[in-house]
């Protein structure tokens, strides 16, 4: 970063950036190539991934075949929440999700290899793979979001567009920070994936629901500590002009970026702490 600030002409800056991105591009391009190499298998991966997304969406629909409103929201409005959360999570999962392979590296002792390369370890891990099949999940989320926006009765104006963009970008960043957070904790926990999955995937599930139905402890955990309510529910409430539930006033929808900053701050803190704690991969 320091060299960016002191770099001279813009042309020099872009050449420097391109060189700096070359290692990550090389790894990602080869991962993507190998996933698409077997067309049938890739198509199956995409298909099964989409099926999972559709099933989760169907779950919401099943609930609404019994009630007309949940937590003060109609089905179409819930679709907006579900779509926002699911799209943001799927995109974060696509680009940061394989951080959850860290326990494998730790167990096998192969994390050492990352220390021996001249790039930051977190960046290397993030770009060590990309799961293209997760694009299918993102497509389900995008479709739900599209239907939600079109039918939930939001006013289609710049304010809504701004909230939508703010919500999506912040939600993506919040979930991405959550993946980093979980990865940092792996350095301390034996079989830590079990524990961290509970707040990563539990968090994703919570994010697709209206926070108004949560109990108080749940509001504390997923409203503030892991700020899941900020990824979809609160921006949607603000967009729809609904009153927020207790502790979560509607204007908080504008504070989605603060949740992203918090998530990354905790993520990077845990990561730094974990890397210093690392004891090297065995023998």
């Amino acid at each position, binding site marked *: 970063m320091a060299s960016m600030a002191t770099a001279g002409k813009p042309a020099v800056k872009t050449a420097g950036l391109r060189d700096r991105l*070359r290692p990550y591009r090389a790894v990602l391009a*080869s991962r993507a190539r190998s996933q698409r190499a077997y067309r049938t298998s890739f198509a199956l991966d995409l298909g099964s991934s989409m099926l999972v997304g559709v099933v989760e969406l169907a779950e919401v629909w099943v609930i609404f075949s019994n009630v007309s409103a949940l937590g003060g929201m109609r089905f179409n409005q819930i679709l907006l929440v579900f779509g926002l959360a699911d799209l943001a999570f799927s995109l974060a999962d696509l680009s940061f999700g394989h951080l959850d392979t860290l326990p494998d590296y730790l167990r096998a002792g192969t994390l*050492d290899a990352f220390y021996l*390369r001249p790039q930051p370890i977190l960046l290397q891990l993030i770009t060590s793979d990309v799961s293209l099949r997760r694009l299918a999940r993102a497509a389900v989320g995008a479709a739900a979001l599209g239907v939600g926006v079109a039918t939930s009765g939001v006013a289609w104006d710049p304010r809504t567009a701004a909230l939508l963009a703010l919500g999506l970008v912040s939600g993506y960043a919040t979930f991405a920070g959550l993946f980093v957070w979980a990865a940092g904790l792996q350095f301390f926990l034996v079989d830590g994936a079990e524990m961290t999955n509970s707040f990563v995937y539990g968090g994703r599930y919570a994010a697709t629901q209206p926070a108004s139905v949560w109990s108080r402890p749940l509001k504390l955990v997923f409203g503030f500590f892991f700020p899941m309510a900020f990824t979809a529910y609160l921006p949607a409430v603000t967009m729809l002009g609904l009153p927020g539930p207790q502790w979560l006033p509607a204007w908080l929808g504008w504070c989605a970026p603060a949740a992203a900053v918090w998530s990354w701050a905790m993520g990077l803190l845990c990561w730094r702490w974990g890397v210093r704690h690392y004891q090297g*991969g065995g*023998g």
Partner: protein
Amino acid sequence: MSAIIEADGLTREFRIRDGKRRRVLTAVDGLTVSIQPAEAVGYIGANGAGKSTTIKMLTGILVPTAGRVLTCGLRPVQDRRRLARQVGVVFGQRSQLWWDLPVRESFRILAAIHALTTAEENDRTAELVEQLELGGFLSVPVRQLSLGQRMRAEVAAALLHSPRLVILDEPTIGLDVLSKQRLREFLVGERRMHGTTLLLTTHDMGDVERLCDRILVIDHGRLAYDGDLPGLSRTVGAERVLVVDLAEPTPDLTGLDGARHLSSEGGGLRQRLAFDAEQTTAAKVLAAVSDKAEVLDLTVEEPDIEDVVRRLYAAGR
């Protein structure tokens, strides 16, 4: 010329939980050593003596508990990324290649990681492919390689960016005699051509004899010996052991010329005799044994590293 590795009081402790009690294990204890460019150093010691821990501190993987170290003039933890451009590390038992990618593809990615220009990449790859004889399996995925092939590919991968310092952790473990030989020849050539500094840990005396001109022995985290191989042999007495299987139970073969009786099994059917290779030969000892009993079979045991270290430790008391 300034040292390529300069360790001063380097120490690493691990807090481990032993049942309910917590205790502190000192893996490396006040290591002070200086290695000059273009040296070839064998770093030997028993399992758990602290070899891997030292290597991890030299390369910035582990933070030392106490002491200081400079590798290539850099602080390993703080300057890890700059150091990575000057050091190549081979872990014998852990692959640094991409398991599912062809060898050639792994090299291409590593060239990008180390920011080699196309010309540098092509020249160096061609050189390594020729010298390590990788041509036959460049397009084979790493997971399908034999151990010998994989080790050669690992070595090439670690040396692709022409590091000044190459650290090899058990590079010949599990390799057959021919593969070992090839790898040693390559390393000797690489050092001669490029002035590369070699630091290798090994359990194989052959590696030390053929590759190293200086030996460091570490025992319980402390430097127990620093010098050349003849000096080490003089210190501990490089005795070999002749094991003979005899036709019938025989009393212990004591008092043979130049050989010392160590032990007997099966009521004297198998006996172990130590002799100094500089004083006598296996043939002479065998002849002396044959005078007293009929020999059915025999093996000669080389002094192994664990044994050398044990004696060194005993001699120091």
